[in-house]
Structures are given as C-alpha cells and as structure tokens.
C-alpha cells in the first residue's frame, strides 16, 4: 500500500460541513503535492472552508480568484514560475460549477495552450457553496433548489470534453478511495503539461444523506457503476480496480440512489436514464481500454 505522508497541509477545525468529502479530497491532494505548491481557487465550497481573513486553513499559498478565471490565472502563474525556473506545483482546485459551467472556457484555453498545471475538479454535482443549485454536473433526476422537480437534463460529461484536448494525463477519482486519489495526484504532478483529475465528492447536506455515510456513499457510487475510476495516460485508458470489479458485477443502482434525499421520488425513466448513461460510459471505456476504439 502507498505510504501517505503524515504532514498535514489542511488544518483541523475548518468550517466545512460535517461529513464533507471534498475536505478529504483536498487533504490527500495536498499530501501528494507537498509544500512546493500553490492552490488557485475560484469561488467554491473550499473558499469557505479555507477560513475567514486573517485566518487560513491551508499550509500552502492559496490564490482566490473570480469564478470563471481559475484556469487562466493558473496559466499566468505557471508561466511566471517556469520563467523564474521554479518547479512549484500550480493546482487549480475547483468545484463542478466552476469547472463544467462558468470556468469551462478558461479551462479549455489553458489545456489547449498546454499549461503546465494540474486541474482538480471536486464534483458534488451542484452549486454546494450557495445552497445546492443545479449545475451542469447535476445528474438526471436529482432535486436541487433550482430543480425542485428533479433535473430533466443529463450530467455534462466534462471528462470527454477534457479528453478532446488530448492532455498527457487525466483521471477520475472518488473521495472514498484516498489511496487511489493520492497515487493519481502524485502521478499527474510528475508529468509536464495540463493534467485533469475529476473527483466525485459526495455532499451530505446537498445529497441529503446522514453525514457518517459520506465514505460509504462514494463507495456505492463506484460499486454500482455510477462513477467509474479510470486513468487516461497519453491517451491510453486504464480502468482502476474497484471499477473493474463493478463492471463485472455492479451493485443494484437503488443501493446508491435510495439513501439520497435528492433522488426521493425519482421517476423510473430518470433511473433508467442514469443507469443507461453509466453503462454506456463504462462500455466505451472498456472498449477503449481494450484498444477496440
């Protein structure tokens, strides 16, 4: 098993909600990145979790920047560090709204320009910081404050959008699998160029499940096949262990959807849509891994 450093870069007693999995994600991201790191952060839950001036909950520099601007800000920062012959890690740490919606143009531009940075999208599938409004990453059928009847549209597939930029490394991860996440961040930071890691981060108040189930919820997402753990290294796909098992024998999707209040009363059609999308993605990834397409 990978040795995870004992050093902590995210201090205790932050203002995160109880059971916040995105804080776990950040904890392991920073352990993998180490002290020679700058976080660039658009408006997101972590803007609050970092604390209120003059305090900071993070033991690395954090540059807060406007919602749409994170990847572009990181472009400038990375260019300046490299011009100064510094190898400092530049990591964007952004939520799903800041990534798949308002930040997508800057993200696309930074990847097209081969910016040397790591972009981490922690995905709680809605605008969590502002009280759970829908985002482009909200899945079909999920109730948010702006989709009180359940979201009629499909979750935007940011991974395929990022993939179209042909980055040297991209991966998915989940807060419930910290070793997997740690390894992926470490690997990403060893590669020069634009890297992307998309991390599912279950959210107890937003998804409406008991706080103590936050790790279990992430595991269920993977075990039911609703979230696939994979890496794409120089275009080559590898499906990671837990998802490989789930592809052979997934748990019934109801085990993942059932405990979540946001899916209460979801229609059969919406469940079918979720399942069929997940199966289609899994199949595409399997075929890619086999080199069939």
């Amino acid at each position: 098993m990978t040795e995870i450093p004992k050093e902590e870069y995210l201090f205790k007693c932050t203002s995160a909600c109880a059971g916040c999995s995105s804080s776990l994600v950040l904890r392991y991201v920073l352990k993998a990145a180490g002290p020679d790191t700058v976080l660039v952060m658009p408006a997101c839950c972590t803007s609050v979790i970092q604390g209120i001036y003059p305090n900071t909950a993070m033991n690395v520099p954090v540059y807060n920047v406007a919602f749409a601007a994170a990847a572009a800000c990181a472009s400038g920062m990375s260019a300046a560090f490299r011009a100064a012959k510094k190898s400092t890690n530049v990591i964007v740490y952004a939520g799903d709204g800041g990534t798949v919606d308002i930040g997508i143009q800057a993200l696309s531009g930074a990847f097209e320009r081969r910016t040397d940075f790591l972009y981490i999208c922690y995905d709680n599938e809605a605008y969590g910081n502002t009280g759970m409004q829908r985002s482009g990453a909200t899945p079909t059928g999920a109730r948010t404050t702006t989709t009180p009847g359940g979201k009629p549209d499909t979750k935007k597939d940011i991974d395929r959008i990022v993939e179209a930029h042909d980055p040297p490394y991209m991966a998915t991860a989940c807060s419930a699998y910290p070793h997997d996440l740690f390894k992926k961040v470490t690997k990403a930071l060893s590669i020069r160029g634009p890297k992307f890691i998309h991390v599912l981060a279950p959210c107890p108040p937003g998804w409406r499940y008991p706080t103590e189930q936050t790790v279990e919820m992430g595991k269920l997402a993977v075990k039911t096949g609703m979230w696939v753990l994979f890496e794409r290294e120089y275009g080559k796909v590898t499906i990671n262990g837990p998802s490989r098992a789930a592809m052979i024998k997934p748990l019934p999707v109801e085990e993942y959807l059932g405990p979540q209040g946001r899916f209460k009363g979801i229609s059969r059609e919406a469940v079918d849509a979720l399942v069929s999308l997940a199966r289609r993605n899994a199949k595409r990834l399997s075929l890619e891994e086999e080199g069939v397409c």
Partner: protein
Amino acid sequence: MLTIATGNKAVAAAVKQVSPEVIAAYPITPQTEIVEQIAEYVTNGELKSQYIPVESEHSAMAACIGASITGARTFTATSSHGLLYMHEMVNWAAGGRLPIVMANVNRALGPGWNIWAEHTDSMQERDTGWLQVYVSTVQEAYDTTLMAFRIAEHNDVLLPVMVNLDGFSLSHINQSLETVDLGDFIPPLRLPHAIDVKNPRGYGPLTGPEDYFKFRWDIERSMRDSVKVIESIENEFFRRFGRSYGFTDDYQCEDADVVVVSMGTLGKEAEVSIDLLRKEGIKAGSMRIRWLRPFPKLDLKGRDVVVIDRDYSFGYGGILAEAVRSTCRAEPYSVIAGLGGQEVTYDDIAGFIRGRRPGEESWFGVTPDV
C-alpha cells in the same frame, strides 16, 4: 533613436524595452497591432517574455493576475468590448494590489458595431482602483508606457495602470518617435506580497465587514499617495530623457479667459483651435487631462470653461464635465463630441469655445431632425 511609429507600435516598443516576464493578451481592433508586434518580438527573440495567447480578455487579465502575484512583471493590451469583458478581473487586479500595466486603445461600444475612438470604454472602468492616463501623441504613448511600469510598481502605489490611447486617431497614426536607452530606469520588480511557498498565505479569502473596508481604504490611500509618485517619476524621466508631461497638458492657459478641457487626441487638436482664437483676439487656452485617476487638482478659477466629453453617462451627462463641475465648482459648457469616431476638427473646437453657453450641454452634430 529617432524613428517613425504608430501609437500601437510605440506602446509595443516600450513594452519590448521593459521586457515583462509575462504578457497575456487577446486581439481586438484597434489594439491588434500591439499584440501582433509583441508576438513578432517574442518569435524573433527580441523579447524574452512568456507570451500567453489567451482565449478571451477575461482570461488575459486573469493570466496577468496569476503571473503578477508570483512577483513577475506583466503587461496586457485591449480595447472597448475587450476591456468590458475583463471588467471583473480589472477589479480583481486592483484589489489584489498587482502592478499590471495595460494599454487600452479607446474605442466605442456596440451596438452598433463601431471600431472608432471614444472614451466610454475606459470611463466604465473609472472606479476599479486602476490609475488611468490618457495620451495624445505617439511619443507620449511610448514615454507614458515606460513610466507606467515605474509608477505601478512603486511601493507607495502597487496598483495597476491603464494607458489609454485613442483608437485609430492615435493607435494607427504615424508620427516621429524618439526611443530612449532605458539604462536602469526600470529596476527589477520586488513585489512585497509575492507568493512565497515558504511563507504560505491566503490571498483574497473571505473578508468580513469588520475588515473589508480597510482594504478598500488602503487602495484609496495608495491612490492619493500615487500623486507624489507620478510627480517624482515624471521628474526622473525628465532628468534622464528630457521630456515631461504632467497631470494636465496646459497650452496657453496662464492668461486665458476661457479654457477648453478635454482628453486624448482631441486635446492636441484643441491646441490648434487656441492658436486660431488667439489670432482673433480671444484669450483661450487648452487643458488636456492626462491622469483621470488620480484626478488632478485643476486651476480653473475665474475663467469660462468648455469641457469636451468623448463619452457619456446616460441620464446624467458628460463624465469629464461632471468631474470638472464637482472638483472646480465651475459651470462648464459641456460639449459631447467625437463619439464613435465622429470627426471633430480644430475649427469645430474653436466654434465650441466661441459659442459657449456656460452651464449648458450640447451634443455636437445633434440637430432637431436627428
């Protein structure tokens, strides 16, 4: 070295000599020549900057911000819609106390599409915490761009500076340009709050009502302090290179009974009008405002004042006229002229002065049938 250049090329020449570590820009008419020239310099090795060809102006300013906070010197250029598209980040740059220098080629706003000179674009960024200077000649564009870096980066300022030049009527006009040997006029930038991984800090986190206003006041304090810095950098520039400009460019104002106040190329045009009027026996003078922020103290006491605004605040009036009215307790004749590149000749300006109606407003060219 004496050469011929457009306003745009003069800005690019100054930037080349200053050699910022990072330049991020997005092309827009009539600023394109600046970024094309810089890209050329970078490609042929004359300029060692990291040049980031961003996908939007919002990202251009964001990239400058990200670079600047590491302590790198940065530059960008834009115009009109580009400036407004980056508006959010324009605020962020000033709030982050980042000494970014930006050339803005003044251009009207759509609709309808209009690529010609107007000042409403930069006027809409008036309250962002940027220092703003408006130039009128190719030489002044070059000299002011050089000085802008020194002023922005001064420890008593640490605010971004916007150098404004009129679209086409300056950006694309060829005039003589005397470039200078910079020597040590632009020393290395030492940003006191640059990111240091050995001393990790949070930049721009949540800031509550008990602290936020202190940061706003700090911007204002630096804006006030910048007056002395601008004076001292101008003096140094004069000592080294023999040219100076001041907060306002005054022409025959000493004994003037009537002063025309304007900005940009119209201010140069006005000087010809003054010569005309003086021949007619009218004691007129021209005061061209260079620094809009910080706004200078104007001495207009006891004279008639005509203000030409190449901008407008709908439902209120000419923006420069309002500044003159409120800071000088004057009752100017407010003329709105030159919008969207509308031709305004020195004869027209002489006409504004002859036919002045203190306290009133007039839109040049607007007749009852318009």
